[in-house]
């Protein structure tokens, strides 16, 4: 393994899972996520020498992925026939109760319906682990706008879950 490969692996390889999940929820498609992550790493590989501040590596590669998504896929989202088809079954590795599993699936369905302007900062925060200021830098908006979008994202998720729960109770 060359020096460049070692540097690349150490700096960016660790974000593979986070990037995949971020890509999955951006495009809401497994194949799209694979292609997107692959293209992101390829672009990062070509441009790694331009990354001067290694502390910014995570933010840098997430930005590459977001731009790549915008460039390639934003206007050509796949046709989603049914939300149920898109939502992956929850893996029950943690031995959750049926109620917990149902809540997680409902949350996934709510995520699918969340507008991208709200979903993106939420994913950057929850999946990427970025702070509000870092998200603001990435999205090129003010920190207070990020706070508003995060607030609305969580509110929409909660109201979807409450609605679903009411429907469940009526049945």
């Amino acid at each position, binding site marked *: 393994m060359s020096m460049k490969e070692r540097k690349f692996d150490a700096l960016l390889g660790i974000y*593979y899972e986070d990037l*995949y999940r971020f890509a999955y*929820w951006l495009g809401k498609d497994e194949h799209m996520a694979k292609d997107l992550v692959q293209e992101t*790493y390829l672009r990062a590989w070509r441009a790694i020498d331009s990354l001067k501040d290694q502390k910014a590596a995570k933010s840098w590669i997430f930005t590459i992925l977001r731009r790549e998504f915008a460039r390639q896929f934003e206007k050509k989202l796949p046709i989603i026939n049914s939300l149920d088809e898109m939502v992956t079954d929850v893996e029950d590795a943690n031995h959750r109760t049926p109620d917990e599993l149902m809540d*997680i699936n409902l*949350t996934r369905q709510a995520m699918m319906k969340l507008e991208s302007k709200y979903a993106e900062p*939420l994913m950057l*925060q*929850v999946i990427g682990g970025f702070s509000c200021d870092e998200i603001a830098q990435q999205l090129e908006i003010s920190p207070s706008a990020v706070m508003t979008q995060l607030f609305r994202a969580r509110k929409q998720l909660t109201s979807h879950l409450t609605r679903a729960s009411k429907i469940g109770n009526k049945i």
Partner: protein
Amino acid sequence: MNYFEFKQILDADPYSQNPEFLHAKKHDKRCRQAYQKAMAQEQMILDALQVPVPEHNIEHIKFHQAQDRQSRFRQNFMALAASAVLAVGVGFFMLNQSTESDLEKFIHEALAMEPAVYKGADELPQETLKPLFASINTAIEGELGDVHFMKLCPTLNGQGARMVVMNELNQPITVLYMPNSPVEEAVNMQMDGLKGKIVALEQGSAAIIAQPHQSTAQIESNLINAIKPLNQGHQGL
């Protein structure tokens, strides 16, 4: 920080490192309870976002990085090599009888190259493509799709065209149009690491070569609907 200020931050950013927020979380009972409730909700969001990650994909990515290193040095060479492969393939098959299995073999060899090598940055307008198709006695009626490369080339039974057509996810897909090689019905081809399908057209046939996960249904449908024989009515185009 009072409860309402605390709640305002909590509802947007439960991970806030604001010192006053952290203090209220630790020392105010009402704030602490609200925080615990919010974190239960947060855990559910976190669990919901944890979709399974394909492990093999990272190896695939590393493979592509290694490939990229080599291919950037010899991209031009690859384009020339592709032309050579086509020429050799054509020469070989011109000597043989035109059976359907010959057709499959020819397509497999000639189209092993990545469509990405050929694709141009911009879509070619249909008006630009029509004269090229007309030169091989073909008319285009309706929407052919997002074509980023087209070049006339020899095929098994005369001139045809090689194209790179983008699918609905903007992925480049190779299409080989063979106006003089009709097939009665669609033929699925077994190819190493690729999927291939020869579709029957009103005039001749077209082979669509793609990665196994890439969508080609829309391209297939466009080809079937748009490619027609050039009749007297089309001669003027």
